[in-house]
C-alpha cells in the first residue's frame, strides 16, 4: 500500500537559550510510516513528545534533522527545509490539523473561523456557509453563537469550533491532537462519528486519543513513542 507520510531518522531537541541553555531532547532517530487509509494512534506517557510529533509533521515546529516526507499533489515533498510557501500549500490541500485548543483570533465570528479553510481554497462564502452551518448544528453549537467571536466561548465550545474548522474541508491526511479531550460524552460521540466519516472517505489519520475506547474504535494501529534516555545525551 502506498504511504502518505514517511518520517525517517527524525531528531528534535529544544534549546532554551533564555533559560540557561537547557536542552530538551524529544526525538532520536524516530521513524514512522503512515499508509494510505491508515489510522495511527500515538501513545506514550505525558511529555514524551506526541503533540510535538504532530506539530513537526504540520511544520509548526522546526525539524532538527532527518526527513518528513509528505505525498502532496502527486509529488513527494520534504517538510524539513521546506519553504513557508510550500508548507502553506501542503496545509491548504493535503494536511489538516486539529490542535488541542483553538487559537482564537479576536473579533472574528465563529462561523468565519469555521469557513476559513474552504475560503483559502477559493470556495465562495455562499458555498462555504451552508457547510459550516451543517457542522455547527451537528456539533450542537447554538445558532446565537455563530456570529460571535469564540474568545468568550467555553473550552468545550471552542474545541467544537476547532473540530468544525478542521473537518469542513477534506484532506488526504489529518492530524488530531486529543480532539475529544474537553467534550461531554454526547459531543464526543459526534466527533468520533465525524472522524469515522473522514476515514471512510479515504483520509489517513495520525491522532492522539487519551480515551482508550475512542482510541480503539478509531485507530487501526498504535505507535508507542519511547522516552529518550536523557543520561546518554551530552550537551
Amino acid at each position: 500500500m502506498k504511504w502518505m507520510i514517511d518520517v525517517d531518522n527524525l531528531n528534535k531537541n529544544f534549546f532554551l537559550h533564555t533559560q540557561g541553555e537547557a536542552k530538551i531532547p524529544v526525538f532520536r532517530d524516530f521513524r514512522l510510516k503512515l499508509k494510505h487509509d491508515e489510522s495511527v494512534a500515538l501513545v506514550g506517557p505525558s511529555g514524551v513528545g506526541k503533540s510535538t510529533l504532530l506539530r513537526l509533521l504540520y511544520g509548526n515546529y522546526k525539524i532538527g534533522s532527518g526527513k518528513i516526507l509528505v505525498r502532496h499533489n502527486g509529488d513527494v515533498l520534504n517538510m524539513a527545509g521546506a519553504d513557508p510557501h510550500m508548507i502553506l500549500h501542503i496545509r491548504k490541500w493535503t494536511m489538516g490539523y486539529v490542535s488541542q485548543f483553538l487559537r482564537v483570533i479576536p473579533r472574528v465570528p465563529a462561523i468565519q473561523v469555521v469557513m476559513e479553510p474552504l475560503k483559502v481554497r477559493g470556495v465562495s462564502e455562499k458555498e462555504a456557509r451552508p457547510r459550516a452551518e451543517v457542522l455547527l448544528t451537528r456539533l450542537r453549537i447554538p445558532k446565537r453563537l455563530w456570529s460571535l467571536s469564540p474568545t468568550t466561548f467555553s473550552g468545550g465550545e471552542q474545541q467544537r469550533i476547532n473540530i468544525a474548522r478542521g473537518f469542513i474541508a477534506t484532506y488526504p491526511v489529518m492530524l488530531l491532537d486529543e480532539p475529544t479531550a474537553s467534550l461531554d460524552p454526547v459531543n464526543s460521540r459526534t466527533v468520533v462519528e465525524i472522524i469515522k466519516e473522514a476515514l471512510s472517505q479515504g483520509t489517513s489519520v495520525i491522532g492522539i486519543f487519551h480515551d482508550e475506547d475512542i482510541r480503539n474504535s478509531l485507530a487501526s494501529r498504535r505507535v508507542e513513542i519511547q522516552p529518550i534516555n536523557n543520561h546518554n545525551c551530552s550537551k
Partner: protein
Amino acid sequence: MCMKDSDHIPLLKVKSISKYYGRRIGCHGIGFELWPGEVLGIVGESGSGKTTLLNCISGQLEPSEGAVWYASNGGVIDMCKAPEPQRRLVMRTEMGTVYQNPRDGLRMHVSAGGNIGERLMANGLRHYGQVRRKALNWLEKVEIDQERIDDTPDTFSGGMQQRLQIARNLVTGPRIIFMDEPTSGLDVSVQARLLDLLRGLVTELDLSMVMVTHDLAVTRLLAHRLIVMKDGEAVESGLTDQVLDDPQHPYTQLLVSSILQP
C-alpha cells in the same frame, strides 16, 4: 475544485540586500521570496534595520548590494537596475506604500477625495465623475463616512488618516503594499479596527504585503511569514507560527518570551 493559486512564480525575489550608511550597517545580506497573496512581517527592535530593508525592497532606497526582482505585469524586472521611468511606473501602478506617519503618505491640504483620486488621475483616469465615484466607494470600504469626502485629512483622527492612506494606495489596484508600522501611533481599539480592515482587504483582493512592525501579535494575525532582524541581520525567518511557537535564535526566543501569548 477551484485552484486559486496564481502562484507559479514569486512576486518578489529579494537577493542578498545590503545597505550601508557610510561605515554603518543599515541591513546586511537579506534575501527572501514573496508569493502572490502572501504577507511578510519584518520584526525586530528599533534600529535593527527594518525600515531600511523595507525601503530597499519598495524601490525608495537604493541598496548598496543585492537585487530585488519583481514580477511586474509586464515581466520580471530588477527594481534596482531598471531605468528610472520604468521603475516609477511600476511603483505607481502596481505598488503602494502606507507610511508610519500619515503626513508622509497624504497631502494634508488636499481633500480626502483628492487624496484618493490623485493616483487614479496620475494613472490616466480623467473623467471627474468616475474618479469621484471610485473615491466614494473606497471611503466606504475603509469605513470613513462618505460625507467627509471634501474634508482635508488634517481634520481626521489618526485612525482615519491611516485608513485614508490605505484607500489612496489601494484605489489603483496594486499587487503589493509596503507598510511601516501602520498601527503604531494608534489607540488599541483603533488599531484593532485597522487590522481587521487590512486582514479583510488582503484576502478579498489577494494582495501581497510587506509589513514592518514591532508587535508580534500583529504578525500572528496578519503575516504568513516572518523575518526577525537584529543589528541589520536577519537572525531568523520562516513560517510565522513556526517562528513564534518554536523560535530557534536566542534573540527570537527573548522576543517571544517577553510578550504574553503572542
